[in-house]
């Protein structure tokens, strides 16, 4: 996008003129009560049920990486709620959903825009750090190493991350995928597999299938394969009630999103 288009879109003005005010408004202590760890689709739906009360924090730069960056699945369940219909329609309007198939690479940017446009509060590139302040409020670490003690009076926490914050999940494996023209390439790995092992294994499979390297796009996340279903674990290391409900346990983005929304209302 050239400078002219950026300005014409209004993004420049909105960015330059009100970012602090928007953030300050969104993060005013008297409104935020719920913290969501990780921007999993379940958590995004949960947050949009009560956007002014909820802050989502995400370690990366994209929302719902378990679906937007995992390379699969690229299908979407039909919506069953008004907000799900809204999402469905927006995906079609943007050209990202055709029939039931999603175009995965642009999905992440779309979802960020969708979430923020509906009043969602999201802090990117930050993660929660253990702290023992009294009364407790989140201590956040940014991607550049800045540590910030907030004063948000959080009453409940929802953890939607893949492995759970300070959890020791029981996995039956991990899955690493890639998009290639006309096909997917996927490897299933043992639960303790590292990024290195995943990448080397995936490329071994690519080589065996004779897939072209330039148009081979590995996923941006290692998808966990849980040994259990319906995971909902309390997190006992935090002094406020916290439930770990990993978004990646759901079969697709719509299912996760709508479940989060329904559970919050």
């Amino acid at each position, binding site marked *: 996008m050239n400078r002219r288009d950026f300005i014409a879109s209004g993004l*420049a003005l909105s960015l330059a003129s009100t970012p602090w005010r928007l953030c300050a408004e969104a993060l005013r202590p008297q409104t935020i009560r719920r913290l969501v760890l990780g921007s999993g689709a379940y958590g995004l739906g949960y947050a949009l049920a009560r956007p002014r009360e909820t802050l989502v924090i995400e370690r990366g730069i994209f929302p719902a990486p378990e679906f937007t960056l995992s390379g699969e699945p690229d299908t979407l369940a039909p919506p069953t709620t008004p907000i799900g219909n809204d999402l469905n329609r927006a995906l079609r309007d943007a050209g990202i959903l055709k029939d039931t198939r999603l175009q995965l690479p642009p999905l992440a940017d779309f979802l960020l825009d969708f979430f923020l446009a509906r009043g969602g509060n999201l*802090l990117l590139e930050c993660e929660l750090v253990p702290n023992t302040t009294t009364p407790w409020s989140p201590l956040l670490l940014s991607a550049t190493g*800045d*540590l910030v003690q907030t004063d948000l009076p959080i009453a409940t926490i929802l953890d939607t991350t893949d492995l759970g914050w300070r959890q020791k999940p029981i996995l039956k494996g991990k899955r690493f995928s890639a998009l290639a023209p006309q096909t997917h390439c996927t490897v299933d790995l043992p639960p303790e597999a590292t990024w290195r092992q995943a990448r080397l294994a995936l490329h071994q499979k690519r080589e065996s299938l004779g897939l072209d390297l330039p148009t081979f796009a590995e996923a941006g996340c290692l998808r966990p394969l849980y040994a259990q279903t319906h995971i909902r674990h309390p997190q006992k290391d935090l002094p406020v009630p916290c439930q770990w409900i990993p978004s990646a346990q759901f079969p697709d983005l719509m299912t996760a999103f709508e479940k989060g929304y329904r559970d919050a209302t």
Partner: protein
Amino acid sequence: MPPDTRPAQLFEGRPAGKPWDVLVVGLGTAGAAALQCAAQEGLNVLGIERLGGLGGQSTLGGVSFEDPVSARLLELERKCERIPVKYDTSLLGVWRENGRLTGLRIISNGWIEDLPAKLVIDATGCAAVARMCGLEVRRGRAFDGVMAPCVRADVWVENGGRVRPHYWNTDCSLAGGLVERSEHVAALCRGRHLFWKERGGKAGRMLRPGYLPGAREESRVVTEVVWSLGDVLCNRAVCDPVFYAFTPEDLPVVQQDYAFESWATQDWKVLCGLPMFGYASAIPYGCLVARGVDGLLVPSKHLGVSHDLGGGLRLQAEMRKSGIAAGCAAKVALGLGCALREVPYGVLKGVLERHGLPGVRRRDGVGTVHGAAVGRLDDGGIVEALRVDVSRTGEWWYAKADGGAMERAAYAYWLCRERRLCGDAAGRRVLSDRLAGALAEGGRFAGNFAVALGLMEDVRGLAALRSLAARDGAVEDPVVRGAFPNRIKALLLLGRFADEASGRVLMGILEDGARGFVRGLEGAGAFDGVEQLRFQAVSYAAMALAAILRVHRNASLSCQAMAWQGRLVSGAEVGRNPPWWRLGKVRFG
């Protein structure tokens, strides 16, 4: 949210356990190279990376023009296969004892761990370790701290089948704290989405999004030696080079407000117009050694160079060399048991040479990027090269230079500058006499010779520069298509001369908002519209007036200028393009 209340990230003492020889934090281009080099040198090294792959911007960030991203990711992983790496791990704090780094505190998924180390290589690119140590860092340019703008690159398959990065440039950097940065990153992503909606199908298809916001510049560490573009462009001697670079000056300046950049940048971009050229730089060892604590090396884009030099050096080849150099320095320091700043260069050079460094100095000084022949110009050649309507040589450094008239003119200007800085007095006089003679002939190209004399700091061009600024018609000032106008260059040079006689003319330009000044230039298409042209003129006039008032006290002119400034800033919108509000930072005495 309250003003940032920052919990401690610097711990005194040392973590328990057997220390690693080296911890490398940040495994982008520089960090991955440092990790490999240190391991090859037999050091016990651990890499720490926030994301899930090696290579940083050149892989997960999508900025790979030659190799497919997947290929590069795989290659790096295979090269580092035997080297332990902690992915998905963030830096949380540092340990220090008696002025020396002794380890790091890291966090992964909420679990905290302390790692003891003898030496740390900070390759985060944002000086994270250095800042946690409380070391001095600098941000952006001296005038107002503005940094190079950020970008997001995604990998696309174009309609013809070519796979390449596709950039989305912004006019802002990723400065600011946690919240502000998040807002900027979100704006980047939303902008990408808008592009997809409006033009995605025509451009091809997105293969993979870039997983990093592309911060071209973040904090820079103040190191034992800080090297600037000025040092490089006047060929200042380096007795302990760790690598050589021949780089284009790739510093996309925010909204082209070169008036606020360094003199060296202004010489390059504005007066000489050299985007089609590169320069040779030798980087001293001291640029890698953090000042204020021992045991910390800082390769990557936050190394100890100035804002204006960083633009050329932050490219992948140079970042890789900086990482290798850091790995080598770690080997020597640990082998000899000496402080990093005491590493003997003779020993370091031996280790560098095992890794192909410092390398060969490709050429002296300035030359065309793609090898097109411009040819050395003698004094007569310089004068003849300026008898053209000087226009731009091209916007981007990767476009081809064909050694044509524009490249020769830019090079001619450069040689004038070089003669001033590096030539002997007699040689300077000979050239400036010829330029003065050409100026005295008058005619269409007189302005060019006035600018050339200005580059040589020869006052014989001053009258012509005043005339250009005043637009009194005494010096011909043709409107040249695509050109950086001579009358605007004149404003810049009048400031360099601190020419008191120009004060009233400059004040007039400010009061008028340069509306009259740019009349006729609109058709040249040199800038992005009339408002940008006016901003150029006003910003140079303001900076020139400020320079004059620093040397020549003039209370009435100072008051007038400050009153103008107050009216301007109070009426301007923050963030409007161009950034008129930046003029609020100019100091008029």
